[in-house]
C-alpha cells in the first residue's frame, strides 16, 4: 500500500487559525460530547435535535471507539421542520422514545440546525411536559456544532444536568467527583479508589458500565449503569466537588458552588505520580482517612518502575495530541519522567493550555490550540519527536514521519479495547509508562541492524 500523503508539502502550511480552511480536523462537534455525558446518566436515552445524520454519525463515531451499542435518537428534521420549527418532531420523538425505551430521562442536545433556526427548545420541553404527564423527563443542553467542540459539549452537558437536577439541602457525608471525558477503565479505577477510601461519592458522569458492558443474552434498550437522577439530585448536598481538568475555567462544578454552596476543588487529571498524589490526597482528606495501603503500594511500584525505565525515556522528545485536559496531563507526566514535551496540541480552543502546562512544570513546549491534524502534522514533521502520544487520528502523521504512536484518549478507531485504556492514578500511569518505554524499546529494536533479543 502506498504511503499516505496528507498534503503534498506539509512545510507550506502553518497552523494558523486565521486560515479559512480546516484540513483533517482534530476535534468533533459538541453534540458528541453531550451524547457521551448523557451515557453516564442511568436510564437515559440521548436525543439529538436536528437532522438525523448528526445522530447517525455520532453513533458510528462512538461505536467505532467503544465497540458497544449506541442507541442515539434523532428528531429527524425535514425541510418543513427547518422552515416551521421542530416542535412536532420533538414531541413525536419523545413519545416514541417513551414507547420503545421507557427511559427515566431523555438527554436532549441541539444541533447547529436547531440552534440556527432559533428553536425555543426549553419552551417546547416545558409545553410537552405540561401537556402530557406520561412523557419522560427531558434534560436539555444547547450544543450548536459551530461553537466549541466535543470537550465543551461534554462539560456543558454535565453542567446542564447539575443545574437541572441537583437540589440543595442538609449536607451529606459524600463528595462529587467530576472526572471529565475519561475512559470507562478510568472511571472504574476511580470508583475502586473511592471504595478503598470508604468515601461515598457521586462519580459523574459514569459510563463505565454503559459503555463497557458484558455479553448479554438479551439486548438492553438502555444499557445498565450510570448515575441515577435520584442520586444526582443529592449532588447539591455534597461536602465538596472534586473536579479534574487542567484547563477548565471554572468547569461544571461551579454550578453547584453557585447554586448550593458546594465548595469546588479543581485539580488536574491524575496522571503521573505528583498529579495522582494531589488527587488522591484531596480524596483522602475529604474522606478523613489516610491513603490506603494498597494505593501506597501501587505508588511504590510505579516509582520503582520509573527507576528501572528512566534511561530509556530520558531526554526523549514527545508530541502530545488530544483533548486539552488530557494533553496537558500527559505532557506533565512526560516531563515528570524526564521526557521533553516539544509539542502539546489540541483541536479545542480553551486559551488556557499554556498556563496549565506551566502549572504542571512543563516548559518550552510549543502549544497549539484550535489546531487541525494537518497543522499538527506539519509541526511534528518539523520538530521530529521520538514519540507521539495521541488518538488514532494521529496515525497518518505517525506513519508519514515514521514516529511511533502510543494511543491514548479519544478516538481510538484502529485498535480494540479503547474503553479499557487506563490513564489515571498510579495504576494508569504505570500502564502508560510501561507502554511508552516498551514502544521506544521496540522502535529502536525494530529499526536497528543487529536486532538484539536481549536489551
Amino acid at each position: 500500500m502506498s504511503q499516505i500523503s496528507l498534503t503534498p508539502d506539509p512545510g507550506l502550511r502553518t497552523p494558523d487559525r486565521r486560515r479559512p480552511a480546516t484540513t483533517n480536523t482534530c476535534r468533533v462537534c459538541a453534540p458528541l460530547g453531550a451524547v457521551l455525558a448523557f451515557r453516564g446518566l442511568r436510564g437515559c436515552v440521548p436525543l439529538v435535535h436536528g437532522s438525523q445524520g448528526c445522530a447517525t454519525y455520532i453513533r458510528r463515531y462512538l461505536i467505532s471507539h467503544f465497540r458497544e451499542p449506541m442507541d442515539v435518537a434523532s428528531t429527524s428534521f425535514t425541510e418543513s421542520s427547518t422552515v416551521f420549527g421542530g416542535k412536532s418532531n420533538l414531541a413525536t420523538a419523545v413519545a416514541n422514545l417513551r414507547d420503545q425505551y421507557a427511559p427515566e430521562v431523555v438527554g436532549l442536545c441541539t444541533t447547529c440546525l436547531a440552534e440556527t433556526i432559533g428553536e425555543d427548545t426549553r419552551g417546547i420541553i416545558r409545553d410537552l411536559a405540561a401537556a402530557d404527564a406520561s412523557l419522560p423527563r427531558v434534560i436539555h443542553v444547547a450544543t450548536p456544532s459551530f461553537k466549541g467542540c466535543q470537550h465543551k459539549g461534554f462539560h456543558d452537558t454535565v453542567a446542564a444536568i447539575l443545574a437541572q437536577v441537583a437540589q440543595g439541602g442538609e449536607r451529606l457525608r459524600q463528595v462529587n467527583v467530576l472526572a471529565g471525558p475519561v475512559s470507562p477503565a478510568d472511571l472504574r479505577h476511580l470508583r475502586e479508589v473511592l471504595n478503598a477510601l470508604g468515601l461515598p461519592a457521586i462519580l459523574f458522569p459514569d459510563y463505565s458500565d454503559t459503555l463497557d458492558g458484558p455479553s448479554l443474552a438479551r439486548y438492553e434498550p438502555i444499557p445498565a449503569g450510570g448515575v441515577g437522577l435520584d442520586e444526582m439530585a443529592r449532588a447539591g448536598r455534597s461536602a465538596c466537588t472534586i473536579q479534574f481538568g487542567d484547563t477548565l475555567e471554572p468547569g461544571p462544578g461551579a454550578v453547584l458552588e453557585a447554586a448550593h454552596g458546594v465548595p469546588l476543588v479543581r485539580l488536574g487529571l491524575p496522571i503521573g505520580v505528583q498529579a495522582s498524589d494531589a488527587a488522591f490526597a484531596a480524596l483522602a482528606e475529604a474522606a478523613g482517612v489516610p491513603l490506603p495501603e494498597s494505593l501506597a503500594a501501587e505508588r511504590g511500584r510505579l516509582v520503582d518502575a520509573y527507576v528501572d525505565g528512566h534511561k530509556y525515556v530520558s531526554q526523549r522528545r514527545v508530541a502530545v495530541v488530544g483533548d486539552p485536559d488530557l494533553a496537558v496531563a500527559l505532557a506533565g507526566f512526560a516531563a515528570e519522567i524526564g521526557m521533553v514535551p516539544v509539542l502539546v496540541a489540541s483541536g479545542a480552543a480553551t486559551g488556557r493550555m499554556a498556563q496549565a502546562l506551566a502549572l504542571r512544570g512543563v516548559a518550552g513546549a510549543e502549544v497549539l490550540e484550535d489546531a487541525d491534524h494537518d497543522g499538527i502534522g506539519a509541526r511534528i514533521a518539523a520538530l521530529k519527536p521520538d514519540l507521539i502520544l495521541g488518538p488514532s487520528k494521529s496515525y497518518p502523521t505517525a506513519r508519514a514521519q515514521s514516529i511511533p504512536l502510543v494511543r491514548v484518549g479519544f478516538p481510538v478507531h484502529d485498535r480494540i479495547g479503547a474503553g479499557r485504556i487506563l490513564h489515571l492514578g498510579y495504576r494508569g500511569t504505570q500502564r502508560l509508562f510501561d507502554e511508552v518505554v516498551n514502544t521506544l524499546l521496540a522502535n529502536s529494536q525494530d529499526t536497528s541492524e543487529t536486532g538484539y533479543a536481549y536489551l
Partner: protein
Amino acid sequence: MLDARKSQVITAGDARAIVCDRPSVAGSVTQRACTFCGSRVVLYPIGDALHLVHGPVGCAAYTWDIRGALSSGMQLHRNSFNTDIRENEVIFGGEKKLARALRELIPIHKPKAAFVYATCLTGVIGDDVEAVCRGATAEFGIPVIPVQSEGFRGTKKHGYSAACAALAQLIDSGDTTGIGPFSVNILGDFNIAGEIWTIKSYLQRMGLEVVASMTGDGRVDDIRRAHGAKLNIVQCAGSMTSLAKMMQEKYGIPYVQVSFFGLEDCASALYEVAKHFADLAMLERTRALVREETAAVLPEMARLRKDLEGKVAALYVGGAFKAFSLVKALRQLGMRVAMAGTQTGAQQDYEHLKELCDADTILADDSNPLEMAAWLAARDVDLFIGGVKERPVAYKLGIGFCDHNHERKIGLAGFVGMAAFAREVHATVTSPIWKLVPRRQRPGCSNTEGTP
C-alpha cells in the same frame, strides 16, 4: 415495535406490500443518515478532486477517511477539508470564508476539480454556494461544483441524486476521441478494498475498455469523457441509476443494472454486458472467464459450505441490490436468511426480495436496533451482515458478524470476492467463542456445550 413502523415490516410470504420510501419516524433510532451523507459517500472516492465540506466541523470530522475506497494515484479524497463554520459566519454568512478556503486549498493541492458540499448549517444561513463555485471555477480554471447536500433536504437518497447531479456537471466536458465501440463506464462501484480493479480486470479480459469509473478509483478527466462510452454498467442501483437514466436520455447510452457480489450475480452481470455488445468472440471469452474464475474458488467454497450448511443469517444493508446478492450468496453457502432489511429499498425491490426469500423471512424497511435485536434473538441467528452501526447489535448478543458496508477493508466483489466473503462468514460463524456467550448458555437453549 412502534405502531407507526408496523407497515414497514412484513414477512416474505405476506400478501400485503411493504410501506417504504418515506421519512424516518422521529425518535425511532433509524440507521439511516442524511442527505449530506448520501452525497458524500457517492463522490468520496474521486481521488484527484478536492472535497470541501462547507459547514460545521462535525460533518467534516465524521466523514474523514472512513470509506475503504482505494485510489491508484492521488489520494486527496482521504483528507477532510472543511470551512469549519463558526458563530461569526452564522451571523455574517459563510460565502467569504468558502471563497477564501478554495483560494487557499486549490493552489496547494492542485486538484482536477473541487466538490463543495452544502450542509444544513450553510443551507439555513442562506449561503449562495453556487455563486461562490462559479467564481472559483472562473478564477482557477477547474470545475468547482456545488453539491446540494443540505442534511435536512431528505434522506440519503436525495443525497445520491445531488451527487449524480454534480457528476452530470462534469460529464460531457472532455474529449471522447479514441473511445472504441467496446467501451463501458462503471457506475456505483466505490473501489472498496480494490474491488473495482477486480471488476475492471474481468471487463478487460472480455475485451472491453473502461472509460470512467464512478466513482471508485475515479478520475476527473475520465468522468469528463464518460459520455463517449457505449454502455453504462450500474452496480449500486440506488445511488447511480438516476445518473444512468440522465446519460441515456442525453447521450443515448444504454445501461444495465447488475451486481458483482456473489458467483451467480457476478456471472450474470458479465454475461449481460457481453450480450449487450452481441459479439460472439466476447461472449466466448466471457464464458471462459466465468468458467475459470468459478473453478478457482469452488473447491474452497465447498469446503467452507460444509461447516455453514443450515446456519441462519440476517442482513441489514443500505441498498436493496446488495440485499438481493447477499440472499443468493448466503444460499450458495448453504445458509438460510431469517431477516433482510434495507435503509433505502423501494417498493419493487421488496417485491423482488419476497420472491428471493423464504416465506417466513422478515423484510424490514428503515429498521432500528431494538427491532433488529429482537429478530436476531427470536430467530436465533448465527450471522448478521451489516455495517459499523449494526455490528454492536450482533456482538452484544453474541452473534457472528460480517461487515458489508463501505468502511470494510476486505474486497467482497467478483469471484475472488465471493471466496473472501465465504472465508469472512466462516471465520465468524465457526468461531469457538460462541459456546461461551450467555445466549448459548441459557437453559432450554439447544447448544449448551461448554456450560458447567
